């Protein structure tokens, strides 16, 4: 029961934890100790990190289409500044 309560309480700090942003050192130690002993929380931390990895990977796949860029430069009257490499 205690284990469950700890999991629930510590879950609120896992986002800060994976950002290495838990300012309270004692709390950070407690989270680390808990994760070391609790397989479920270790999985939550690992899958949380993987979720962010996928978000970053998804972001890299989203590029500005060249036609959208051309229409933007046209709308802003900046056609003279659109370079060949921009449209590649």
């Amino acid at each position: 029961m205690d284990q469950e309560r700890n999991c629930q309480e510590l879950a609120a700090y896992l986002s800060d934890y994976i950002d290495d942003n838990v300012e309270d050192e004692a709390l950070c130690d407690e989270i680390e100790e808990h994760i070391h002993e609790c397989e479920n929380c270790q999985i939550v931390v690992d899958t949380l990190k993987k979720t962010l990895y996928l978000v970053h990977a998804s972001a890299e796949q989203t590029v500005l289409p060249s036609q959208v860029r051309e229409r933007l430069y046209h709308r802003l009257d900046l056609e003279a500044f659109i370079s060949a490499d921009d449209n590649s």
Partner: protein
Amino acid sequence: MQALQEGDRAEFAKVVKAYSEKIYRLALKMLRNQQDAEDILQETFIKAYHGFKDFKGHSKISTWLYRIATNEALMFLRQKGEPEISIDKQVRVDDGQSYTPTKIVDWCCLPEEELMSSEAMEYLDRAIEQLSEAMRVTFLLRDLEGLSTRETAEVLDISEAAVKTRLSRARMHLRERLSGYYGDVLDSLPIETSHQGQDVLEGS
């Protein structure tokens, strides 16, 4: 900065080149519609061009541009009424008082082609779309665009504590959703592959 405030076209073009892809990506992930994202992109730079003369330089240009784009996107969503997302669905994701994860599946071991399949990426986008506007924009600025907590707070004019709270809920929600999705993928794989995952888990 002075050149921008004086309407220097070449300097403005440099700003457009540096930030257009970032603004488009943010708008696309916010609105999930290419035409709407393009409209927000254009409006952002038109407003920026006319607004440079009043830009005080208290924040970075990027932060200022993100603020314009964010306001444009949020205004668009409110005008549109976001019919595809039911209000109660948003509330459910937004008011989650509990952070407690319920789906405990180790899907980290899945092969890259499963993790990054177009179906999986579409599922991720839909999960992001289900976040409330407030959580979505916070998450996208922080985790998609890589702004710091402080910059995100500045763009949204909220406290850093509020950014952290929204971000934590958004991340936990997405993890939960992806755990459901990839859990099903794991179940559908041949037993040998699924066992490899268990072995990795047990050995860690």
